[in-house]
């Protein structure tokens, strides 16, 4: 089971206020986790990555185990700690404030 932490705007959109837990078939990678996430919550299509090209949106980053993995190969296996559920997969929106 993969734990996914969404940014506040997307939690609002999918009407959850906590982590999302996903079962991911096969190798858990950025791509397979996001596929499972979008399958569970179709409203997220296009909000994290382009629905056609699958390219990550510019103001979005992916973190795991205190590392920025945004630029890793989307097909690469996620760290064991994320796969085992000990650490979450973070979808992060760029910070903005005044």
């Amino acid at each position: 089971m993969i734990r996914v932490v969404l940014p506040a705007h997307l939690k609002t959109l999918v009407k959850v206020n906590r982590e999302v837990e996903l079962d991911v078939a096969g190798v858990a990678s950025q791509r397979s986790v996001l596929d499972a996430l979008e399958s569970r919550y179709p409203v997220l299509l296009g909000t994290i990555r382009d629905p056609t090209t699958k390219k990550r949106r510019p103001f979005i980053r992916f973190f795991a185990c205190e590392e920025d993995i945004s630029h890793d190969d989307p097909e690469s296996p996620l760290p064991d700690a994320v796969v085992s559920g000990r650490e979450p997969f973070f979808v992060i929106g760029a910070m903005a404030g005044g």
Partner: protein
Amino acid sequence: MSGVRVLVGTRKGAFVLRSDGMRKEWDVSGPFFGGWEMYHIKGSSVDPNRIYASQTTGWFGQIIQRSSDGGETWEPVGNQFNYDGVPGTHQWYDGTPHPWEFARVWHLEPSLTDPDTVLAGVEDAALFQSTDGGENWRELSGLRTQDSGSSWQPGAGGMCLHTIIVSPKDPERIFVAISSAGAFRTDDGGKSWRPINKGLHSEGIPDEDAEVGHCVHHITMHPSKPDTLFMQKHWDVMRTDNAGDSWVEISGNLPTDFGFAIDVHAHEPETVYVVPIKSDSEHYPLDGQLRVYRSRSGGNEWEPLTKGLPQSNCYVDVLRDAMSVDSLDSCGLYFGTTGGQVYASNDEGDSWEAIVRDLPAVLSVEVQTLA
């Protein structure tokens, strides 16, 4: 009993303001979609319970929301706006070619005859249509691909298609306006388009009376006179009486003719309202006095409407889609400001009251007149 429902889009969510026909006491609900920019919310005139909303942020892209119960509940529908074919390029700010890229939906225009059909004006400028309640969107690409498309340039707010008017007498005739390309018209339901900017004169572009390149801010029409349009351009208030074939300036005695919002009285097709803004660099009212100007003669002679509006130290803006009129017997007017106020008049603009004063910056105001 008759009433009104005012749909307000703000920088941080949507609000629904309801009142009876007196328009004195208001119920305020929201925010809906808190934290998201709500560019435009508009209801169907065929089925007032059907409402479409454009929900967007620069972070997470575009969502389209649909309500089928008058804004009580909402459901996300389709958000894939794919340009038809290989979109090519338009001009960037510096004149270099720039790929067409979808950014957001600025305006949603429900059909006058079918609640499931709706047009969407988007940035980068293009027109999309859904015929299944917003589930799927198809570009009416004849607009973007007509001769001048590759020469269009964005204004400071982006290259947005912000105005859509479908002729009530001929559904094949549609008017759109794009910042900063100008106004365009189709007479065949969106297959072919042509610029309708003759008579516009814009300082700041190389050819001041060019066929395209004018920063049109907003256009409005009274349904009983579909060949007459009123335009608030970057500078200048204009009108046409031949469906855009030629325009004449009607700024007349306005203290400044820069502005964004323009609208027409629901029952008097020659009564027009604008909110003059000081200048293109100073987006606030002249002398700190928020004044709606009304012309009862179709332009040129304008009177300031001030009762109930702040007449000192007011430095808010009123954006292009942030003004609307109801069609009750005594025409009501509504406008929202970047300071978060929504003002209402139940007497054709003679007097005003703030329905709410402290919303996030208001992007759009649309009113539904309910039976």
